[in-house]
């Protein structure tokens, strides 16, 4: 049975990507040619743009396997002109398992009783409160 092929992310046209040449393209012209970046670097003073494209194959119930990924990294100088164009492929991906710890948050957890009683007045708790 054939796997389901899907593309994620911005998928820019390779021909257009080749046009971006450091030195003469500015943020506006890059945006006109490639559209908005998938993501912008968080702390870079003079901005780095990322165009991320991913091809995945999903077979039956298995997790989708990433078959190809190209990240176009366009760095600008402080005048907003393209300083460098770099490509990061799937080969440089690192395997990483996220830390399981989470910052605690408050909020009423839905208790089993509230669920089973349906919404008798939302989250009706008849407990008395300090006046």
């Amino acid at each position, binding site marked *: 049975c054939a796997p389901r092929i899907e593309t994620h992310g911005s998928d820019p046209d390779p021909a257009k990507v080749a046009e971006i040449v450091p030195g003469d393209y500015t943020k506006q012209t890059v945006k006109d040619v490639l559209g*908005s970046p998938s993501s912008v670097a968080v702390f870079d003073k003079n901005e780095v743009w990322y165009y991320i494209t991913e091809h995945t194959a999903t077979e039956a119930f298995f997790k989708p396997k990433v078959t190809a990924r190209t990240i176009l990294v366009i760095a600008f100088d402080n005048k907003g002109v393209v300083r460098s164009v770099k490509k990061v492929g799937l080969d440089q991906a690192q395997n990483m398992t996220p830390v399981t710890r989470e910052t605690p948050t408050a909020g009423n957890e839905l208790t089993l009783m509230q669920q*089973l009683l349906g919404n008798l007045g939302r989250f009706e708790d008849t407990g008395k409160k300090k006046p």
Partner: protein
Amino acid sequence: QTSPQTGVQTGGVVREIRVEGARRVEPGTVRSYLLIHKGDAFDPERIDKSLKSLFATGLFADVTIRRDGDVLVVDVVENPVINEIAFEGNKRIKTADLKAEISLRPRVIYTRTKVQNDVERILTLYRRSGRFAATVEPKVIQLDQNRINLVYEIHEGDVTRVQNIRFVGNHAFTDSDLRDVIRTKETRWYRFLSSDDTYDPDRLTYDRELLRRFYLKNGYADFRVSSSVAELTPDHKAFFITYTVDEGPRYRVGNVKVAVKLRNLTSATLMRENTLKRGDWYNADAVDKSVEKMTAQVGNLGYAFVDIRPRINRDRKKHVIDITYQVDEGPRVFVERINISGNVRTLDRVIRREFRLVEGDAFDAAKLRRSKKRIQDLDFFKKVDVEQVPGSAPDKTVINVKVKEKSTGALSLTAGYSTTNGALVGASIRERNLLGTGRSLSLSTQIAQSQSTVNLSFTEPYFLGRDISAGFDIFHTASNRQSTSSFNSKSTGFALRAHYPLTDTLTQGWRYTLRSNQVDSVKDTASTFIKAQAGKRMLSEVTHTLGYDTRDDKRNPTEGVFAQLTTDLAGLGGDSKYFRNRIDGSTYYQYADGWVAHLRGATGYVMPLSGNVTILDRFFLGGDDLRGFASSGVGPRDRVSGDALGGQWFYSGSLETSFPIGLPKELGVAGHVFTDFGSIGKIVPSSSEVQNTGSLRASAGFGLSWSSPIGPIGVDFAWPVLHEKYDKSEVMRVNIGTRF
């Protein structure tokens, strides 16, 4: 309201503002709405604005502002407060519903405009339920301390039905053809259940759309509904609806082209998806379906931004239409964020994981539609609204999903009667969205003459975060098979199960069952073979199922195929060791509206791995799967005790066709004619006392089925045609399953 006194001398400064007549509203409040304050000049323009702002509050029946020397006097007459609201004469619509509809409440301020709006709201409520003759008269009763009671006197009148629907200008199709197309129906005695015969303006516009689509499907490209008029009879009792249509000529298809402006995509690959050939009658539906298929095909080829538009140009003289599918690069839009709201109980991820789109992906309308369908299929929500709003950049969009949850906990009681199980009563508590995690937990019990079960089952639809539905069942079943094989059986145990899709139509499932089977209270007149199998046996069994399902509708399919291979391997521990296979298949074909042919077949074989196959693990035939014969009425039988012993192999089949019996569709009554056939055999150990010919049995018969409001009801009459002397026949079978 009287107009403000105009003779206010200008000039001089307001030394003091005095408020008179305010008994309930505080003077401070009145002053806060004024635009003129102490120390300001007497400016008539500002005074006039203050007047308007005081009226706007709706607190006052009348306001006058006058000057008394340097004092600005604001004289107000307060609107009364409503003490109580009552409704009279409302039979069809309950007071609670009326109260919920109107804006005025006890202890709220009474204003004439609010009462008029509420009268209008009540009238629309009645119109929507088809009562156009209703009238509403508001009455006010003065009480002390400027309070009033409000009474709405309602004369409901009876329902305004649609008496007659006529069509003008239709040559290609008769009036009755077109009446089947639209939703609004003429009033008939048997339509007491449905409300389709009441006049509803929204449904009228929907009917126009249905007519347009019907004609476009049959090639009338220039079709127009020139007018749809609903006349009310003078006594307000009934409506006459007249549709004037302009059919226009019928068009054939000219040449069909696909114009592709995409990098390395040829028009040939897409042309295959087009279903309209030159010379066919033009069909708008077929064009839309072709576009859908092309979009899906393009999506599979990895193109994210495709916009396919069919362009139709008519040749009015030759009545020919040329179709060009315009395929070009759609606007590049990306999904910036997916916001989910309204999920008071369901977890965010339970909805988000159904999405075929991820934030950052290219926007794809087909994937969005499929995601919405998947969320609706969860059946946790009354309403699922998916809207697309512009994002932070022109080529970014945000998808907002608003869900309205419904209670997924269900306490359902069932009662019914069927020839195989006798009278049955059942109850189940089921929560399909446990704690909002999407998991389901249910405890159900069913008590019937032939079998009683208690079953606790838990299912996690996304086991290990994947598209695997896994869960466990804990069950206890007590069967009374005295009448067929003179013994009772009890089985208690648990099962672990998982099943998952291999493709859109193929699913695979695994199940491990560990249970103890007990055969007891064996009659002393029972067959020696059965007596030999009394006692308790442990069963540890692995089951593998492979399912193929392309039916269009699970409950009453009209086309498609369903096939299932089930393989049971018992013997990893436990006493019974056997290898059992079974194949079930059925296919449906609708050859006319309501006429559905249904071919069904099944066969199975069980082979012992050591020792013999006990009675509980053998096949039995008769009853539902071989109508005309009693349940377990066919197959190896003990000549002396007459007990059915079951067999190690069986095959059965049925050819059936269901058809409408002239009653309208809404009542859901259908007849069916069928022939069943099958056979069963091979019992080890056997002896001369066992009658076991393994010959072909067959039966023929007819029946009626009715999906009544209280549940499906069916009755079949079937007569054995090929049978053995020792088989047990059963002509009539009844099945009333009520669910309330």
